[in-house]
């Protein structure tokens, strides 16, 4: 593999509802911040990739507006995923493997607040014939998975409250007294939707060494899909996370068990113990950034996990880190990225 590293990361604060800016206005300052931090100009970037979704933005071709934040003139080499921008990161990393360029910029924009009621939106992610017509609550499939874990003795409502309590400084008993949104999940078990943008700059080899004092080298990256219908999945494990973690570890020469920091795309508290087990994390600090339980800006959430993990390498407070991103109901599709302070 070609040596590729994160050399810059910037994000806008995740706010519950940004009513002041359009898509380009949210993304543009973050792009400038990420470029300034590594001393690059827009014209120095060889490839751009981004992630967003029309169903969060509320119109067709919404991502075209975000391109105004890039200033695609003269024309640029560019691609887009209609997914979490962590998959745009994967695309940019693959592109840099080709050796056709030295730098890539990845941006993610996610606005969870524009939709008035995510119960209207998220059922559209489900099988259009056998699930969507029932219009389940947005948290219903997560509730099923959480209860399956409780029934299997793999977690408990108290343990979920502990996950939340660690981050919010709210007593466990108080959390356990709150009403359910989809049992055993309570409001605080659900990552709060918000609006934000995130930008990562990637660079290859010596370019990375030149642009960052301590680049965060992408040592391994993989993602895997599971089947869709919840009744034919084993909800008590995350097979695709395990599979992606193992493949990433083969590339990296180290595994999740060796990392000091793990940033997990936990859209619900219950996903933390599930992912820790699936990945085989041993002594890692999990979601020191606060994770999505501190704010979930839709399709920027996974990219922020990669950025936060890379930040810890770049600032020298970690030698090895893991980032995870997910998409789909009950962790259907998972991505794992392993980063380190040294290239392989």
């Amino acid at each position, binding site marked *: 593999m070609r040596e590729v590293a994160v050399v810059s990361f910037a994000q806008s604060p995740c706010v519950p509802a940004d009513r002041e800016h359009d898509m380009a206005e949210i993304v543009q300052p973050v792009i400038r911040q990420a470029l300034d931090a590594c001393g690059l100009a827009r014209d120095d970037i060889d490839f751009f990739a981004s992630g967003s979704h029309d169903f969060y933005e509320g119109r067709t071709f919404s991502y075209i507006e975000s391109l105004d934040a890039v200033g695609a003139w003269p024309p640029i080499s560019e691609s887009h995923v209609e997914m979490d921008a962590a998959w745009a990161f994967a695309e940019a990393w693959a592109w840099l493997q080709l050796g056709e360029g030295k730098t890539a910029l990845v941006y993610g924009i996610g606005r969870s607040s524009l939709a008035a009621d995510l119960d209207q939106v998220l059922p559209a992610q489900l099988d259009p014939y056998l699930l969507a017509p029932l219009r389940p609550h947005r948290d219903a499939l997560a509730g099923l998975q959480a209860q399956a874990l409780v029934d299997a003795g793999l977690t408990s409502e108290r343990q979920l409250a502990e996950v939340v309590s660690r981050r919010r400084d709210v007593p466990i008993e108080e959390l356990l007294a709150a009403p359910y949104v989809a049992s055993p999940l309570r409001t605080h078990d659900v990552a709060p939707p918000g609006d934000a943008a995130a930008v990562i700059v990637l660079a290859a080899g010596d370019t990375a060494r030149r642009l960052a004092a301590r680049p965060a080298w992408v040592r391994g990256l993989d993602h895997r899909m599971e089947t869709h219908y919840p009744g*034919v999945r084993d909800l008590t494990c995350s097979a695709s996370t395990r599979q992606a973690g193992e493949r990433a570890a083969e590339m990296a020469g180290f595994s999740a068990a060796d990392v000091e920091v793990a940033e997990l795309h936990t859209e619900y508290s219950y996903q933390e113990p599930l992912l820790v087990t699936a990945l085989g994390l041993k002594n890692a600090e999990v979601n020191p950034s606060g994770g999505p339980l501190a704010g979930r800006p839709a399709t920027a959430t996974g990219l922020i996990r990669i950025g936060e993990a890379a930040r810890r390498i770049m600032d020298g407070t970690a030698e090895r880190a893991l980032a995870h991103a997910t998409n789909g109901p009950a962790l259907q599709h998972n991505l794992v990225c392993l980063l380190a302070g040294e290239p392989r």
Partner: protein
Amino acid sequence: MSLSAPYTIEFPFRRTVGPKIGTFLAGLREARLFGVRTARGVLCPPLEFDPVSGAATGELVELAPVGTVTAWTWVPARPGDPVEHDFAWALIAIDGTVGAMFHCVDVGGSREKIKTGLRVRARWRPERGGDLRDLWCFEPFGEEAAR
């Protein structure tokens, strides 16, 4: 201060369902439940492709509309939900099948009555049009319903 305003996206999509799901939905209209054969056993509802191998699934098989709750989550009822009081979304393993079906379970609004392992049967809507919602919900029966 930026301007902002509400708006609505609304469209009456009409999906073609193909022969397999079409027959399943037609069965619901007749208050009958069908599954589909795969290499590992019968699946209900009838997925078009095998979730393990990806192969096209086989012929349809009629099933007794009874099963066992294998996972559930308790939710507050919203306008338009199948049941007017609070209920459970659940996975129900239909007797004679592998895997489970996602649908709702009505236990009369009492959360303490739902549990994994609960035996349930289909309750059908009196007026049916060949739709997933013809199967109104599942409900407990036998000894457990009486409890």
